[in-house]
């Protein structure tokens, strides 16, 4: 087959102002302009967004699920990072 494979792009959409862009899926495209067009056609056919980002998938550095414990477990023991760790007398009221 004559076609070389087109790079993969991850698509992020801001559904309305005030919200962050959120990952919605991916598209194949030869370049950023084409990726943007494909993302628009594929993921915003019903007013799903006001802004689209496309990012080459290869540019994303992701944590390895196998390292999940090393990465995230240490926070589980740090309960003093949460407001509920501290005792405030009821008389003080909401804080």
């Amino acid at each position, binding site marked *: *087959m*004559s*076609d*070389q*494979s*087109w790079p*993969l792009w991850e698509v992020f959409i801001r559904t309305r102002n005030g919200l962050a862009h959120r990952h919605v*899926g*991916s*598209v*194949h495209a*030869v*370049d950023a302009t*084409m990726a943007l067009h494909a993302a628009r*056609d*594929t993921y915003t*056919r*019903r007013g799903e967004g006001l802004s689209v980002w496309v990012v080459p998938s290869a540019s994303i550095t*992701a944590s*390895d*699920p*196998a390292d999940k414990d090393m990465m995230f477990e240490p926070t589980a023991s740090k309960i003093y990072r949460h407001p509920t760790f501290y005792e405030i007398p009821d008389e003080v009221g909401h804080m």
Partner: protein
Amino acid sequence: MYTQALNTQDSAPVAKSDPQADSRFQARVDAEEKIEPNDAMPEAYRRTLTRQIAQHAHSEIVGMLPEGNWITRAPSLKRKAALLAKVQDEGGHGAYLYAAAETLGTSREQMEEQLLSGAAKYSSIFNYPTLTWADIGIVGWLVDGAAIMNQIPLCRCSYGPYARAMVRVCKEESFHQRQGYEIMIALCKGTPAQKQMAQEALNRWWWPVLMMFGPPDKDSLHTESAMRWKIKRFTNDELRQKFVDATVPQGHFLGLTFPDPALKFDTTTQHWNYGEIDWAEFKRVVAGDGPCNRQRMKQMRAKHTDNAWVREAANAYANKRRQRAAAMPIAAE
């Protein structure tokens, strides 16, 4: 369903399994945890899902053919706009699904090649012709209706990317079914000739639509593992029964008669009983001998070769721009 042809033995060599890793995986699935792309998973799970999602994607794409066939002949501008939007949605569904399958490590090009070579299957239903405008009503009402029945539980599938793709798809399918049913209402309230056209379309499509749910549970090869892995939440027969129960009253509302003399409401079970499905026909169509199999494959291959210049031009243009950018002196330095 769109993946009914999964009911064939997988001829690939059996993957080695690690019982300990497999039971850790099963525990996560049992706890309703979602499995994400880079997570450890049994090879058989990866392979089953890849085949299922690819078949589903192929069905969306091939499914554009029988409906696309009527876009230029839609009876009004409203119907034309709706059909065009629906067919475009199906292309989108194929795109979401290929993207979900790719996260399991098979490229879209590979999947497409498997479809074009005939190695991969798509739903048997798209091997039936859309002979009249009423067939377009039937496809929306029944084919999309059956697809929705199947796809709603897939929104809770254990594999995250597939489940998320299904959520998007299900949001869009509702319009597909409703526009189809509206076509049926218009025909059934129309002239006697229109009503007859609607009835004939139902007669042609009813049994093939019931086959969409795949072989009966007793003959279904992969139901057990698919249920255990929470890829599937209901068996083929359960989904088929749900569909019949939901659809028969809709057909009666239209004043149509289902082509099944055995169709009868059972007051004790509160279900509609239906007659024997011709599984020999189903096997024939899945094996490649349905009314339109050859035509569909011919169209898919022609589309692939006829559009090759677009892919080549896009690549050439991107390369040229890259080279130009590389040759440009770096102004900021």
